[in-house]
């Protein structure tokens, strides 16, 4: 392993010999053999993925990676986080550099089909919004006719913005920016009237301002941004594992299974659905090539979906996002996992 520098030379030679059979073998087997899950994450997005002062990754997407590693390898710390940029993320996944991509990526038709990815579900329902200065006197996105708007290039938000203004017969002047930090800076410096990005990002940005009360987030959400983890086309078993790990976290919240009461529920729960989820009855794990306790470990890693949400981006955190669409279907949200049966 540690001769990797030196193995590079070896690899350079095999490049000539072994070109052409890149994708071979099942991802599950590879991950198990490697003993480590390669998880593609954002290089840094408040609340979703960020390394702290000691280099430990935390965040909403990071928690999913850890749950998946716990389910597959039995240890939530056996994750290698591969920071990916907006440009490299999908190539990193399809080239096999990462096993799963949990990088707040929007599930779209072309990404799912043309880019040959499989989105395994939605872990955060986001939508694009606008932030403006309060003294601009604008209360609705419909009033942004002729505005200059800071917009991050190479993202779906750029396309949504063009669609929205075209549909409403309005014009705008885009100010292209490269990163959130630059966008905030341009917006604060007055280079643009409005800043647009995903609503979760806007909330985090506004929370970090010196004067949040002078900025408002307009009520219109102009796009659907279902963010979710993705895997490669072609390895359905690995896709199943990734999908049902996410589902297990969501189902756990629905059934009231938390990281604190899980041990107790394993012993005493009489709810058959909970019993199946926690692997005390039936052998659901074997159907995806894992053991019976996979979901138990996934939930134990960071708690259920609700706990992960609350710890990273929920209302108790400085980011302060409400559950909204991301509440359980029983609470008026969109989270609805198929039954564990």
């Amino acid at each position: 392993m540690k001769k990797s520098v030196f193995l590079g030379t070896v690899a350079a030679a095999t490049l000539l010999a072994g070109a052409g059979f890149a994708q071979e073998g099942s991802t599950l087997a590879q991950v198990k053999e490697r003993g480590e899950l390669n998880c593609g994450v954002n290089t840094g997005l408040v609340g979703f993925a960020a390394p702290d002062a000691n280099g430990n990754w935390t965040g909403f997407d990071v928690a999913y990676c850890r749950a998946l590693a716990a389910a597959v390898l039995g240890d939530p710390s056996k994750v290698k986080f591969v920071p990916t940029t907006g440009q490299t993320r999908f190539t990193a996944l399809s080239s096999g550099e990462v096993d799963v991509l949990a990088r707040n990526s929007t599930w779209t038709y072309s990404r799912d089909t043309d880019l040959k990815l499989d989105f395994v579900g939605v872990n955060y329902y986001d939508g694009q919004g606008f932030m403006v200065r309060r003294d601009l006197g604008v209360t609705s996105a419909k009033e942004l006719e002729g505005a200059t708007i800071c917009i991050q290039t190479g993202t779906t938000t750029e396309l949504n913005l063009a669609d929205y203004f075209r549909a409403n017969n309005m014009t705008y002047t885009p100010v292209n920016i490269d990163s959130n930090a630059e966008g905030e800076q341009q917006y604060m410096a007055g280079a643009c009237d409005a800043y647009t990005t995903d609503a979760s990002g806007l909330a985090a940005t506004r929370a970090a301002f010196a004067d949040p009360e002078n900025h408002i987030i307009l009520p219109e959400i102009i796009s659907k941004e279902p963010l979710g983890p993705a895997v490669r086309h072609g390895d359905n078993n690995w896709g199943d594992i990734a999908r049902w790990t996410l589902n297990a976290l969501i189902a756990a919240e629905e059934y009231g299974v938390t990281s604190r009461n899980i041990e107790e529920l394993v012993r005493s729960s009489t709810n058959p659905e909970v019993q199946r989820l926690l692997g005390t009855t039936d052998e659901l794990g074997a159907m995806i090539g894992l053991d019976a306790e996979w979901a138990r470990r996934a939930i134990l890693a960071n708690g259920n979906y609700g706990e992960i949400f609350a710890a990273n981006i929920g209302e108790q955190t400085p980011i302060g996002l409400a559950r909204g669409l991301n509440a359980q279907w029983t609470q008026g949200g969109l989270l609805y996992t198929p039954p564990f049966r």
Partner: protein
Amino acid sequence: MSDTHAQTVPFVRDTMLPAAPPPTRESGAVKWLRENLFSGAVNTVLTILGILIIWFLVATFWDWFAHSVWNASSLTECRQIIAATWGENARGACFAVIRERWNQYVFGFYPQTLYWRPTMAFGLLMVALAPVLFSASLIIRRVVLAITTLATLLCMMVLGAPVGWLVFAALVLAGGLLASERNIAWLLPFSLIYPLLGVWFLWGGSLWGPIFVLVGPLLGWLAWRLLAGISPLLATVGAILVTVLFWLLLAGDAAQSAQAVLPLSIEAVRSDRFGGFLLSITIGVAGIALSLPLGIVLALARRSDMFLIKSLAVIFIEFIRGVPLITLLFVASLLLNYFLPPGTSFDIILRVIIMVTLFAAAYMAEVIRGGLAALPKGQYEAADALGLDYWKAQRLIVLPQALKISIPGIVSTFIGMFKDTTLVTFVGLYDPLKSMSDAVRANIEWKGIYWEPFIFVGAIFFLICFGMSRYSMYLERRLQRDHR
């Protein structure tokens, strides 16, 4: 006769008049100002304009710098401190982010208990560089090595290096000082093995890996000795073949078996733990050290009479110079994975170093070709007249002069390459300028901080690049052989 003369001249002054002070306009600061800043109408206007610009800059940014906060745990706290100290509407820099995250800007995600290892590697790098960079002047060498020794040992102690390694570093540094006093050439073998040693310090792992990498060229040399009697060409080919084959087929297994027999290893650190200036300097130093020899070879190849060699060199140089560095980095980080067999781990930093080296080498080749072209034809003819063969002529006569001419260009390429190392941000490595700053901003405590990291990182880049540039000027002066 003399009497007559004495009478015709009633008074002869026998002491000199004391020199009158020059007019105030022609001396001191006034003169300097008149000559340099106000020597004409245009210059006067330009001077006033320049002063106004400086005044504007200072007036705009002074309060921001003056209100700097160095001690806080979040941007919000910074703002509170500034508001409390300087008033509600005051603005100020929040350099506390640097104070809190300096370790990440310097070492990236390198394990904190092992910070002493890169520090030691850097200190020993100076020892390894001494015979190359400071071979001429004993005093400069003494000062550089003494400062290095003190700083390295002090830093290692502060960072909690184990005693054994402290002693090791102290011995090597003391050896360097001693060699520098007696005969600097003694250090050359150390310079030669330093690349392997440095890699081992930084990445850790088994010592047997580097040892067996070293064995390769030794076996190659042996093969060369054996075959040299038969044919020099065969010997060269054989030596290269033996070295490469040994590396590819045997070295890995041999290192593993040796490790099993006698474990000699330090804690391994993975490439994804590298970041910040550690990453920049690693890539930069490796790129600089590798691109100069490669550039020389390419420049000579491009001027070669042999068609094949010349065409290959031209194609390589023009291709690399025609493609943006970011493209090459993307190829290194993403495209290669499609071709490599699954499961091979081809280190990302190594991939980036290779690409950066190739990129810099192509530019280097053109810079050196310029130096070669600037050399009068007489020098080449003189070398031929002396009966020197091609390599001797290049080594003894042509290259020393051509390289001397090319020094400014070479150092420019180095500086450019070092700054280009920040582009690794696009392949997901944590360069100090953008990726590391974005990662810091991704924590809610520091979200919204913008200029401070740029200023800090920019200042350090300036120090390093300015150092390189001053060194090149020193080198030019030292190598000056003509009388002007």
